[in-house]
């Protein structure tokens, strides 16, 4: 009989349970059915990726000025290159493009400030974004003051117009949405039913009929002789439509705040607006940010519909460029470019909203 006096050194785990081989086994080839699925998936990936990469990168033409520079075997990115200015700025006059750039630089800075959790003074920056920035954007983009030349709205287009429509729709819809949501929870029967009808009406009809209505019926509603700019009509339609969706998101946030909060505030003798403005809304708005970002994403995608009433947003201007006789037959390139631009914006926003949801999950989950 022997006595083991030293510790037996730990043996390495069996080769079949660690490392890439084990991973492959557990995740891809854990059984006959799984193996078949994996092989099918690989084949599908091969079918999709190889021609796509071949078309978009290997056979593609990148440099040149006209369609003669394209070999027609792969994608012709020359087309996008030649038109990129229009796709981004529309028909905005070339010498004034700095105004667009400046507007979006300011906007990006404000949004970045709001989006990064560590930075202070969030409330003031939010007020600045919602109140001061729209005025600044108006003076910069439209001009007519401070020696800036007027740029008519029919020259606005491309990605610029897409962003303007989405941001204006959002900034306009937020206050209306808050009022509607509060009205829907109100105990006054007429106010409540008015808000319910308003919200359900706009949520029940497609945006395209709203835009048709704004472009055809709005001129009829105005006093004779008053005409409304086409872009303003789109703004009105989008804002009304969006405010209904916003109201539902805000209502969801309001419902998540325990009733005791409002009752405690009432017990302290606060008036309705103080209870809402100081106690309920600040807590609710914070929890609603993911929902608000999600409605903003769908608004951002929905702005493409304005091309049906004759405005040239990013998709509209790509579509118009496709019918240029010098560049016929590049529909695929045009759509892939537009899809890529939209995808980048929407995907990053949805990632941000998921991050926020995870962050907000900690305390409030019930």
């Amino acid at each position, binding site marked *: 009989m022997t006595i083991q006096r030293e510790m037996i050194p730990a043996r390495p785990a069996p080769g079949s349970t660690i490392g890439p081989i084990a991973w492959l086994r557990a*995740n*891809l080839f*854990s059984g006959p059915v*799984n193996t078949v*699925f*994996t092989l099918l*998936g*690989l084949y*599908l*990936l091969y079918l999709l990726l190889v021609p796509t990469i071949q078309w978009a990168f290997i056979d593609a033409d990148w440099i040149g000025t006209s369609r003669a520079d394209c070999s027609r075997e792969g994608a012709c990115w020359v087309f996008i290159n030649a038109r990129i200015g229009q796709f981004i700025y529309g028909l905005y006059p070339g010498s004034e493009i700095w105004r667009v750039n400046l507007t979006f630089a300011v906007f990006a800075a404000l949004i970045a400030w709001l989006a990064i959790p560590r930075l202070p003074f969030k409330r003031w920056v939010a007020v600045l974004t919602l109140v001061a920035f729209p005025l600044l954007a108006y003076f910069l983009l439209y001009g007519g003051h401070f020696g800036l030349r007027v740029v008519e709205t029919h020259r606005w287009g491309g990605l610029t117009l897409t962003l303007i429509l989405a941001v204006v729709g959002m900034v306009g819809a937020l206050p209306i949405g808050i009022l509607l949501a509060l009205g829907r929870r109100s*105990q*006054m*029967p*007429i*106010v409540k039913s*008015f808000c319910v009808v308003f919200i359900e*009406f706009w*949520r*029940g*009809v*497609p*945006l*395209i*009929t709203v835009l*048709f*209505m704004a472009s*055809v*019926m709005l*001129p*009829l*509603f*105005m*006093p*004779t002789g008053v005409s409304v700019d086409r872009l303003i009509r789109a703004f009105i339609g989008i804002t009304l439509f969006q405010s209904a969706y916003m109201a539902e998101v805000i209502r969801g946030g309001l419902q998540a705040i325990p009733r005791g909060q409002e*009752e405690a505030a*009432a017990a302290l003798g606060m008036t309705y607006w103080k209870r809402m403005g100081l106690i309920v809304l600040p807590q609710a708005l914070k929890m609603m940010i993911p929902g608000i970002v999600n409605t903003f*994403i769908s608004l951002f*995608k*929905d702005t*493409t*519909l304005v*091309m*049906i009433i004759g405005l040239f947003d990013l*998709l509209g201007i790509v*579509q118009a460029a*496709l019918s240029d006789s010098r560049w016929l037959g590049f*529909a*695929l390139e045009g*759509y892939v470019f*537009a*899809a890529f631009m*939209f*995808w980048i914006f*929407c*995907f990053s926003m*949805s990632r941000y909203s998921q991050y926020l949801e995870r962050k907000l999950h900690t305390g409030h989950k019930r």
Partner: protein
Amino acid sequence: MSVRPQARPAGPKPPFWRDRAKRALIFQLLLVAAVAAFLLYIIGNTQANLSARGITTGFGFLNNTAGFGIVQSLIDYSSQSTYGRTFVVGLLNTLLVSALGVLAATIIGFTVGIARLSPNWLIARLANGYIEIFRNIPLLLQIFFWYFAVLRAMPAARDSLSIGEVIFLNVRGLYLPEPLFESGFGLIPLAFGVAVVASIALVIWNRRRHEATGKRLPAGWISLALILGLPMLVLVATGVPVTWDVPELRGFNFRGGITVIPEFLALWLALSIYTASFIAEIVRSGIQAIPHGQTEAAQALSLPRNLVLRLVVVPQAMRVIIPPLTSQYLNLIKNSSLATAIGYPDLVSVFAGTTLNQTGQAIEVIAMTMAVYLTISLLVSMFMNWFNARVALVER
């Protein structure tokens, strides 16, 4: 909320704006007055504008001859038909693409949503890629892609792509063989009806027997066999009274069979693929919302894996899935109005588009169009509320 004291303390009566009930009344009266004033202002302006343009209001225009053709219609329609009939044709086309879109989106969405949860890493990644790509690209762009970049780039009729020389795809659309029913075919729907009734009876009987004795038959499989088998049996017994009208190339175009126009195909594909990406997310989060303890408890009762899914996980997940699923169906129906961008003759395209332009009856046409979508929305949400109440958790 506010508990009023029984007796008012002595002192002067507080002014009326301190009384909550009176304040609410005044506030609501003001709101009504503001809305009424706004409406009166708009109606006044509209009447002035309409008389200035010489447009008469009313729905009389629905009886006028439309004078334009529609490329796809489910009922008899010619350019001699009235605007009223145009409305019906558009409505039916909207319902057709919505119904088929809902069907396809549900199938793709559930498949991708379940694949997203697959233990197979590659399958889960592929499903995730599908979801992230298609839900972050605007629907209109996807419709344009399918229509202009794919279907409009198909070869001409002469060089059609074909599957077994029976189904053809070219720039003018998809050509499918059409079944022609001969006499004696009526027995098959009859057999189908009998099978459905018998299956329902079987399921009810099986449930009663199960509750009374604890024994059960695999009623689902028997019903499936009945519903599929009985019509098949009759089909064979009557000597297959169906002939297929296969499309044929004559001259420059195909004749015979069913023609699916490319506008329909593009819209249907885009709607299904786009909505499916949202449905997949709903299905995934619905299944993940079921606590793992439920599965473990079911396994502890030694239920087999398929019964764990069928009796424990899926019924609970459906409760979470159905409300957002409804709103996706409604979105799909509303989004089908994008048809107007590629010229598929749906309600918005032929009625709020062509008819509006020809007659100038903006208010009537837009109101009718919006009323249709509102009605559909209300009906679907009423049905889903009813369904939801049926499957809702019965709380203690």
